[in-house]
């Protein structure tokens, strides 16, 4: 049928329109609320014919035509929403929110999984939307045609969520002795003490933060400088920031005006928490090394598992990986086996005597 359409055979276009009418119209209804969908439907059909059927001509049979067409429709509608935002901002924004609401909500739940239970989900959604609207949609309109518009929007929403997360959990401050050192030494400190990066991965980790490094020797020297600057037996957490402490005063001040409840942790609790943190830090380092060794498809499976909270069901992961669900169970078993094997042999885990 597609060949007939491209060759301009009589009746082929009508047949094509009949065939994909519900897909195209449903897509327009998802993107554009209300009566607008009808006009958009005709406009999208015209766009499929544009430039001598350029979008349809690109189809080479690698995938099914319906899957290809549906994904192309998404892109075409994204572009139309973006254009509308420039030409008629009010209508454009309604369409934008209608189109991206699900994606925005999904990304928010990834960064703030507890927000739904605490009833904060709507507040965070509101914050993200306000940031998208502010200054005449400045963030959205910065799209310059590189990559897909949909991908660009997801990137903005991710960045906004990270900003909100940082606002909720203020960034840790470097110890004063480290603040006086150059950028390389500061990054080495962050990677070693905050991110628990193993020494063999330090160069890559520092480079990953956009800091130019001449080689492992430079990083080793920086690490030495960091150790020299820190007090002996320094541990993460020694640089604790001031804490908010609730002051529960007796109901009747006359009873005991100066008695303030001390809700700080007891020394035993602090020691347990510190031990727990240490264990997790060492386990993180071991896991990082183990994950880096996993085959690509197994690692991708883990990434899909961690992409949402709670983790998506195996059938959803199967859909995202274009494989039957049985393959996903096999990947899970493989991940289980490889991780346990790698961790069992890892010196940090051995020294911690953690059961694997």
């Amino acid at each position: 049928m597609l060949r007939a359409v491209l060759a301009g055979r009589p009746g082929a276009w009508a047949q094509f329109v009949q065939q994909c009418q519900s897909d195209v119209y449903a897509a327009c209804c998802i993107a554009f609320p209300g009566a607008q969908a009808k006009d958009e439907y005709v406009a999208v059909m015209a766009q499929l014919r544009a430039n001598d059927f350029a979008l349809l001509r690109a189809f080479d049979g690698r995938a099914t035509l319906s899957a290809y067409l549906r994904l192309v429709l998404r892109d075409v509608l994204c572009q139309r929403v973006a254009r509308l935002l420039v030409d008629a901002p009010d209508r454009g924004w309604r369409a934008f929110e209608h189109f991206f609401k699900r994606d925005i909500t999904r990304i928010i739940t990834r960064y703030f999984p507890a927000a739904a239970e605490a009833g904060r989900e709507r507040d965070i959604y509101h914050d993200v939307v306000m940031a998208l609207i502010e200054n005449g949609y400045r963030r959205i309109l910065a799209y310059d045609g590189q990559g897909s518009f949909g991908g660009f929007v997801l990137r903005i929403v991710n960045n906004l969520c990270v900003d909100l997360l940082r606002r909720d959990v203020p960034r840790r401050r470097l110890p004063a002795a480290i603040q006086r050192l150059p950028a390389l030494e500061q990054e080495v400190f962050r990677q070693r003490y905050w991110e628990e990066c193993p020494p063999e991965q330090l160069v890559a980790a520092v480079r990953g933060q956009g800091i130019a490094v001449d080689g492992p020797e430079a990083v080793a020297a920086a690490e030495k400088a960091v150790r020299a600057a820190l007090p002996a037996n320094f541990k993460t957490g020694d640089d604790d920031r001031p804490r908010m402490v609730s002051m529960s005063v007796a109901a009747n001040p006359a009873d005991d005006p100066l008695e303030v409840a001390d809700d700080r942790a007891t020394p035993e609790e602090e020691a347990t928490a510190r031990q727990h943190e240490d264990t997790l830090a060492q386990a993180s380092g071991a896991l990082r090394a183990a994950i880096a060794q996993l085959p690509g498809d197994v690692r991708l499976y883990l990434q899909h598992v961690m992409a949402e909270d709670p983790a998506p069901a195996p059938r959803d992961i199967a859909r995202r990986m274009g494989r039957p669900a049985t393959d996903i169970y096999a990947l899970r078993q493989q991940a289980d086996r490889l991780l346990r094997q790698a961790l069992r042999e890892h010196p940090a885990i051995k020294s911690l005597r953690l059961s694997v």
Partner: protein
Amino acid sequence: MSMEPIIERLIGRAEAGEAGSLTPEEGRALSQRLRALVDGDPASTGPDRGPAEEALRLAAYLDGTLDAAARADFERELVHSPERRDELIAAVAWLDQLAARREAPPADALQRAMALDTPPPQPRGRGFAAVVEWLLPRPRLAIATSALATLAIAAVGVDIALHLSPLATRPPAIGETLEPPPIRTHLPPPSTIRPLPQGRILLTAETINAVLAYQEQPAEQRRLDLIGALARAGSPAFDARNVRVITVQPRLLERLRQRNERLPAEIAASLSLDGNLRLESAD
């Protein structure tokens, strides 16, 4: 503490917050930590292949019809790019949404869509009558339109000739020696012209001058001159009405002004939705 809840959470066998002895809060904190671990250091998102090719790759991946090598390539890209994974998840959500909502368009919209195929009337194929009609004198308006079209074609021809001979576009300055133009025996065959990569523009003298002139005074005419110069140097077509302002990468501008280091052979231009045409070095 045992590694058990961590592994269970990692491989997707535990529900959030219910991993072993962990409280929901601890479970979530653990998830955040593990997510950072499995994501690793994100790399770049890979080349932009254009919407049709991207849709085709994605559709083939989700259909499971990619060959093993192409699948491995695609998955490698996904592993190193959280953005690509996000796009994949959004695409799957879109496909599911679409599959759940089958809706036929109203009859009039369907008719309009089908009518898009109505071809314009063509003299050929209508037999003798068409030939006779073509030979018969036309109305005056049509003749006037034809004359205007002919004049326009001639004007474009003259314009092209002027551009092919740069010396003819400006008078020689006082004191400048006018050398005879090189004799152009023939134009190079099309196959010898190297196509520029998508979005790349040759940094010609005309482009440099137009950029500097616009930077000096960003007036309307200079803006149009610069857009014209870019188009002649291989830029994709930008509708001048959509270009609100032209910004030049500071480093590129400095190189153009100082001329104390080698200039890039090509530059890249990208137009944002809010009308900012950004020029940068394509080095």
